[in-house]
């Protein structure tokens, strides 16, 4: 069992998975935030590799990516950051990256580097399973998980495909749309999670739009993990001391207990 999958073996425990864009607002922030989040009780950290055209992201993460790119945060830099972090924290680290930087790096070489630097898995939002064979084989060769995504618009056929192929967990996009803090969660969230649950035993984590402890609590009733990104990014920018971000993550953790 992979390190990611074993996170979900704890009984009565909902995993908390914060997302941060590497190098936003600074590389130093990333290096400080991850160990702090781990100490608060986060279970996995999702490290975003900034991309020039982040199609699945809303305004907050677009802006964070843009600024990180401006500071020269390449996939190579992200790997260096990951290497430092994996020496400091015990919990699994996953990269969230668009496909083109991976393709340019070379999928095999990228996976080999990921494994070397202590990355446990990849989430590639613009890579559907139909196009994912090459990367999937490389991830397998290097002991990485490759997480695929489903949305409420996914058909039964698609749910079957993704549940069969995703490893580590399955990323359920809570709504039809892009990342970003929302005031309200999608009304059909429970039935969506339920419909995927019927078809797989793999862990299900819900992300996109989850931005408050109350929402996280609602998600935790049906899912195995909660992914929170944009709200944390906003707080990292608002308060560079990381105090606000940490107290928010703490509230999320408490809401899930």
């Amino acid at each position, binding site marked *: 069992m992979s390190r990611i999958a074993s996170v979900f073996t704890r009984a009565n425990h909902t995993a908390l998975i914060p997302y941060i864009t590497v190098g936003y607002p600074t590389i130093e922030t990333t290096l400080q935030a991850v160990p702090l989040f781990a100490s608060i009780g986060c279970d996995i950290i999702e490290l975003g590799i900034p991309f020039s055209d982040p199609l699945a992201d809303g305004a907050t993460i677009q802006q964070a990516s843009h600024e990180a790119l401006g500071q020269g945060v*390449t996939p190579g830099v992200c790997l260096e950051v990951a290497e430092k972090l994996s020496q400091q924290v015990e919990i699994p680290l996953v990269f969230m990256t668009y496909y083109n930087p991976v393709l340019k790096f070379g999928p095999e070489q990228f996976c080999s580097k990921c494994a070397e630097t202590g990355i446990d898995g990849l989430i590639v939002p613009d890579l559907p399973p139909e196009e994912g064979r090459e990367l999937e084989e490389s991830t397998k060769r290097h002991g990485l998980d490759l997480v695929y995504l489903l949305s409420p618009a996914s058909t039964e056929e698609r749910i079957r495909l993704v549940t069969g192929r995703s490893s580590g967990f399955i990323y359920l996009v809570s709504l039809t749309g892009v990342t970003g803090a929302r005031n309200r969660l999608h009304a059909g969230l429970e039935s969506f999670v339920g419909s995927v649950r019927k078809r797989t035993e793999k862990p299900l984590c819900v992300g996109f739009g989850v931005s408050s402890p109350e929402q996280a609590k609602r998600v935790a009733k049906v899912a195995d993990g909660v992914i929170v990104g944009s709200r944390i990014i906003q707080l990292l920018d608002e308060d560079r001391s990381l105090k606000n971000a940490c107290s928010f993550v703490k509230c999320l953790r408490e809401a899930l207990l």
Partner: protein
Amino acid sequence: MPALQELERAYEEAKRDPSFWAEFDSLSHDYAGRPTPLYFAERLTRHCGGAKIFLKREDLLHTGAHKINNALGQGLLARRMKKQRIIAETGAGQHGVAAATICAKLGLDCVVYMGEEDIHRQSLNVFRMKLLGAELRPVASGTKTLKDAINEAIRDWVTNVKDTYYLLGSVVGPHPYPVMVRDFQSVIGKEAREQVLSQCGRLPDYIIACVGGGSNSIGIFHPFVNDKKVRFIGVEAAGKGVRTGKHAATLAAGTVGVLHGAKSYVLQDDAGQILGTHSIAAGLDYPGVGPEHSYYKSIGRATYVAVNDREALKAFQLLCQTEGIIPALEPSHAVSYAAKMAGSLDKKQIIVVNLSGHGDKDMDIVSEALGVEL
């Protein structure tokens, strides 16, 4: 993905339905103004002193460019799929105008995404879209041009996928768009093939067309693809020069990548970040290119060359003065290459240039480039 599968199924069904094509043909004729002439540019030919140059006059179409062919086809498909809300992206504004036009004609709601940079340099088309009842949404992210407008349109589509149809304007993006847009634009090449056969009694030696995303060029190339002796030349925008980095010559200077859901040539840096582009012609200002062009390049079926801003502007003036035709800056790139090439060819040879659009939209840019105050 489910949205793409739904679209693919709907298009496959429509494609097999003769009534769909009957309506497409009839509106192409009565509303858009097809067929467009294949015109022998006699004075331009004489000026160049070589091969005969023919112009496929897509600039004479309703709305002033070939974009209406695709907008009509997809508009009819959207109506058939019972999607009331249409979204589109636009670079130069020609596709935005075509989409807004078809939506007005078919009674559909239209939202157009356009980069702020393009809004600034194509103000006339912005006004046109508004007159036609479209809602214009400025895009301020990234490079504020066509690629970012496509990003925003895709974000809108995934958000409002149930009731929204994404009317993509070029042969780019995820399947089935490159195939579907090619099919709707192939009307250009089908007509040109018949016209050149009836006017000259034979097929042309060269077909020359400009390539941004690549829809007008694929549209004229594709029906000749099995005519092995007909050589295709795609002309990209060299902007301020391919070596300066300020250009949009994706096939000439790009590498393989994935952009907007398609694997093709892309302008990118060593880390796989998509690069900004430059061209005097907003419609060519895109860092990707249709995958079918990449395929043509890889099998040697087409040759791709690049023409810079200055050369395009000169060809623009040349066509105005020799033929009384004001071309858009995009096909001015193709005219430039054709004029250069014609002189070195035998008088018996035939070049067909796809004159994909009219230059009215470019008056501000051209006057500024020529230092004339309007």
